[in-house]
């Protein structure tokens, strides 16, 4: 049963990502591809966050700290040691894992709202340390730069070098492919985890922690495992972001970014394999329609988030699942787990 569902999910994933990979043929403009690259990276982050919050039910909202750890790893290594992002990507993943394990360890004994507060505060500490970092670390002519770049962030730390590898006309395509690959690997790992005994354990922890522990599930071990996995791939996404956007700053740790990603997860559907991708597509559409009203962009995300959470708490993926049960079991597996429970509180 589980093996069948795993195979179906993986096949669907391959089909979906093959379809997404054809985007450059349909819309070769660099603006569209740039946006698509960005949203693929966000989807990769939300997929991992979904694993922690939606599947395992741990209310961590400090996920952007892992992303920042990965991004800063690539940026700092590129800036001070001239290491190409290709080589520093694994280090970005490890940096994400390290921060994630610290966070997971600190919240091991905490529950519910206590986890929310500690994870949020951890991300904010990181933000404040970076923004208040003004000590002179290196001098370029008369200008003085701090170690982390402070509030301005870092730039000119090198990129993936696609201008040398491929024709400059195809740089946008190559970057999109890289971001998509990052998303695809993260999603496949998430699928395998959710369908493995680990996934069962996570869901058991989410639905009833006491019973899970009574059935012999080592809650602490599984919490650290899910944090480590999510940390690695979130850090990786941060590294890809730094390498493709060629700049990285503390803005990713600010609240609007957090709310934006949270909207993606809620709109798509918490705890569903395909929720993050559906949510990202939906939010990309909202984002595009508010291009001329940039000052109301965050309000738009917030309103969409509220309406979905109140009226469609199962998200787009859950809604799709409800339709599919009527006509085909194939699409049903496409929308992820059916047996959802309450988030652990």
């Amino acid at each position, binding site marked *: 049963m589980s093996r069948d569902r795993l195979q179906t999910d993986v096949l669907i994933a391959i089909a979906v990502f093959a379809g997404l990979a054809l985007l450059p043929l349909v819309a070769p403009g660099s603006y569209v591809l740039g946006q698509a690259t960005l949203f693929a990276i966000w989807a990769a982050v939300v997929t991992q966050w979904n694993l922690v919050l939606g599947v395992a039910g741990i*209310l961590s*909202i400090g996920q952007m700290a892992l992303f920042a750890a990965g991004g800063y790893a690539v940026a700092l290594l590129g800036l001070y040691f001239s290491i190409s992002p290709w080589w520093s990507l694994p280090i970005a993943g490890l940096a994400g894992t390290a921060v994630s394990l610290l966070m997971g360890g*600190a919240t091991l*004994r*905490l*529950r*519910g*709202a*206590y986890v*929310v*507060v*500690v994870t*949020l*505060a*951890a991300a*904010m*500490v990181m933000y*404040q*340390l970076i923004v*208040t970092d003004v000590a002179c670390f290196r001098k370029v002519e008369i200008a003085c730069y701090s170690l982390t770049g402070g509030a301005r962030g870092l730039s000119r730390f090198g990129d993936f070098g696609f201008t040398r590898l491929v024709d400059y006309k195809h740089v946008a395509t190559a970057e999109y492919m890289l971001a998509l690959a990052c998303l695809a690997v993260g999603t496949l790992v998430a699928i395998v985890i959710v369908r493995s005994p680990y996934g069962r354990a996570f869901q058991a922890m989410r639905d*009833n922690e*006491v*019973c899970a522990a009574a059935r012999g599930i080592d809650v602490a071990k599984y919490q650290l495992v899910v944090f480590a996995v999510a940390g690695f791939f979130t850090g990786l996404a941060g590294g890809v972001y730094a390498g493709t956007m060629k700049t990285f700053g503390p803005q990713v740790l600010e*609240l*609007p970014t*957090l*709310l934006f990603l*949270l*909207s993606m997860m*809620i709109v798509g559907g918490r705890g569903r394999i395909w929720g993050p991708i559906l949510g990202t597509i939906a939010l990309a559409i909202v984002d595009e329609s508010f291009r001329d009203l940039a*000052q*109301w962009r*965050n*309000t738009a*995300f*917030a*309103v969409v*988030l*509220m309406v979905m*959470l*109140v009226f469609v*708490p199962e998200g787009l993926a859950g809604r799709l699942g409800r339709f599919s049960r009527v006509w085909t079991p194939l699409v049903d597996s496409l929308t992820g787990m059916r047996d959802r429970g*309450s*988030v652990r*509180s």
Partner: protein
Amino acid sequence: MDVLRDILLSALTLGALYAASSVALSLIWGSIGMLNLAHGAYLAVGAYGSLLLVNALGFPWWAGILGGVAGGMLMGLVTHLFLVRWVFAKPNFEINIIILTMALSTIVIDLINNLIGPTSARQPFNLDGRIDIGGSGIAYQTLLIIGGCAVMIFGLQLVIKKTELGRAIRAVSQEPTAARLNGIPLQLVVLKVMLLAGLVAGASGVLLTAFTTVYPTVGFDPLLKALIICVVGGLGSIPGALSAAFLLALVEVVVQYVLGTKWGFPALLVSVVFALIIRPDGLFGNRLQVRN
């Protein structure tokens, strides 16, 4: 000796600020189990309410606090009508309301930014001057905040312990379903809690911003500190929040004196994590009984 006195006085001032920030947050958590991440927006709207009344409508400076109270209560009403009443006592309330109030706070900040403007203004409701104690001193504003906190906390305890409403609030906080079965109008009680918390938060917003200026995101820093304080004190325990406010203020001031200003907040977080490792439900919190 001078250093010690300065540290204690700074800690007293900071502790008063922290206490003022966290009362309303603790009240909402304690009575309906809701972590209000829009608390920062409540504080900001309260501060702007005072600006509106005094600067734009020409009322005397002390009327500012009334503007703050009105602003905070408006926020409480909006939160209840649009968010809380839809998700209260339903599955996943705890996490859903956290997400919803986070979204609400974004909307409020956007509204202030786009309609009033991102510039900062001076809070009209404040007292100048200070009591001199051999070189350093206590600002009158600090005393005003401590007094204001005392009034709010005393008033709240009176309401919760002695009145009919307080009894209903305690019943709802213990077991919403049982409270409803005993004829308590659940939504009405929740609305009253939100209004009460809005009142307190709005007044705190006015008191707090006398030390800074008023700008759209002015509530964010107090929110973060209030969250930490309430967690250390034990979510929902107002006496716990009070003790935690002065305790953490002392820790922060000492660390800032020894290591430098920027390490104050990181040190706060580290001490919170350690406090929680030893007591996962806060210093004064009780282990919540969850039925399976």
